[in-house]
């Protein structure tokens, strides 16, 4: 068949990177997908995109990552990119209190425009700038717990926890998905089981682990 995928990966997950301007989203992306960091990076206009295929819990997962512009007015445009995303890394800068305070606005952005079962991970970036820190790790942790999100502090510059952050969110997604894939298999009974299963968190089962809509 023309569009058949040759076992290159088991799953394809779309992840969006969101958060205030300048918190380091693009460098998180480049660290994760190309193992690069650029001190003199460019402003992201609209969105940028990259993929990386990796192993998560024994499965080959292709992560499609959308890096979005942080300026507020771009949200009208970038929110169109949330559609189909199964995960979101919500990034703030540990040296910029405001970017942390805006987390709630970003969460409401996701609630309004992304799938309700999207898996969200909160990321406090620039942990290498500890001397300039204005958000304590505990504060981040507390907010994440309150909102039911997973949480990590990262440093794209030092390549600290970036890999782990993606591994965590991807495996969270995978755990949700694998249950569904099983159910889907039983229901449909056609086609090879694990090969290139389309990922859809938007099912009606309400089967979610770390969704965004807990009260």
């Amino acid at each position, binding site marked *: 068949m023309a569009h058949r995928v040759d076992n290159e990966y088991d799953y394809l997950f779309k992840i969006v990177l969101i958060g205030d301007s300048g918190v380091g989203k693009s460098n998180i992306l480049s660290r994760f997908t190309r193992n690069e960091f650029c001190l003199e990076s*460019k402003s992201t206009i609209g969105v940028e995109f990259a993929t990386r295929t990796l192993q998560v819990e024994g499965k080959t997962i292709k992560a499609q990552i959308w890096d979005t512009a942080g300026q507020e007015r771009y949200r009208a445009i970038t929110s169109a990119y949330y559609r189909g995303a199964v995960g979101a890394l919500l990034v703030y800068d540990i040296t910029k209190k405001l970017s942390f305070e805006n987390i709630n606005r970003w969460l409401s952005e996701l609630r*309004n425009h992304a*799938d*309700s079962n999207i898996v969200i991970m909160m990321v406090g970036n620039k942990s290498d700038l500890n001397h300039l820190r204005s958000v304590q790790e505990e504060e981040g942790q507390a907010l994440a717990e309150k909102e039911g999100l997973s949480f990590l502090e990262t440093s794209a510059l030092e390549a600290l926890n970036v890999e782990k952050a993606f591994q965590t969110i991807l495996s969270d997604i995978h755990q949700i998905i694998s249950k569904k894939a099983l159910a*889907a298999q039983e*229901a449909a009974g056609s086609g090879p089981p694990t090969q290139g299963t*389309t990922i859809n968190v938007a099912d*009606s089962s309400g089967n979610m682990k770390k969704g965004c809509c807990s009260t």
Partner: protein
Amino acid sequence: MMSSRVVKRNDTANAISGEVATPLASIEEDRAVEETHEGNSAEESYDAEKVDRSQDGAPGDSTSVTLEGDNGGSYFPWREELESLVRGGVPIALRGEMWQAFVGVGARKITGYYNKLLDERTDVLDEKDLKDQVVNEQKSSPKKDPKPEKWKGQIEKDLPRTFPGHPALDEDGRNALRRLLTAYARHNPSVGYCQAMNFFAGLFLLFMPEENAFCRALVGVIDEYFEGYYTEEMIESQVDQLVLEDVVRERFPKLAKHTDILGVQVTWVTGPWFLSIFINMLPWESGLVLRVWDVILFEGNRTMLFRTTLALLDLYGPALVTTKDAGDAITLLQSLAGSTFDSSQLVLTACMGFQSVKEMGLRELREKHRPEIIAAMEERSKDRKSWKDKKGLATKLYSFKHDPSSVCPQVDSKEGADGLQVNGDSGSTNLGSYLTGLALENELDEGIDLQDQVKKG
């Protein structure tokens, strides 16, 4: 060399006419250089030129013409030669002058305006205000008082992120960039500062003196050519993407079908192309970005954005239809576009191969699509308010159906509606047996509303 390329295009591309082979190429440049020198006072000649620009539109329809008033007697004999020159690439030594001439025609009346804007509130350019500005900019409370200064925080963030490492943007260069962007924000508070403008301003600074970059370039481009693009709502930039989608479907049905199957919207990639006017998207090395800018500034509208995009799709479409998933398609298109080294061929294909794409037609399509975007925007702002009162309800109201009326006779949206929306898993598996392993984002588009209701109900 040129003509052999052209002939080749003739075979493959849609509708490249035979005349293609005539103009351009480097010989043309030399001749044109002379002409320009001769006429230089390039300004006078281009004044006439700009007024005459209505060629693409119906008489009297072109905004630029009406803006400049005088539309009469407009046959300008150099128009065609100049157009050839521009399409062949403006010689680098003349680029700054010519860009100013193209754009800055109506600008003389505001000489001195720049300094006045900057003098207005010099204190704002002091670093000490920065922190407050950042806070103001991002406070969630509604902004009743759109002082230009509220953009300062964003401008400061973007200064070092504008052509980082470019020798012209050293400390002095950045200061000039700051002044330019600040002056613009004060000049037009309804736009203020929007990311992407930093690159335009930076680009202009590379080619012309600071004040001219403001009066004779930035203001014209943002206020006129890209009116409505970079405002708070960014409506026109969204409208253009819907228009582009229409045009792509019409011109490249096979590609459109393939991207539908993959669940990719071409506009995911082209949106940033348009917004950045190809800066950082097409290679600098081949001069392609600058050549596209030459044409845009000369023509005084956004048609060249469409034509260039279509030329890129024409060039890379055959490769795109071999891709097997959304990620591959997007990555491929991005990387191919970023390595388009034959700038002459691309500009030629854009201008000649797609010359039937005209501003007039685009305008009609814009009119058609604008209401959708405005409606979506209104829903969006409604969303924002109602979410505060009642979680979840707003989501039901909001449904950005990408383009319900016109374009999408999509396989997948139908499938999505049948299977996925109601029952995601079995739906995706059904599809999956047909398109094994493809990620179909569109199904999720369709599913969102329902899902939210299920989840939140």
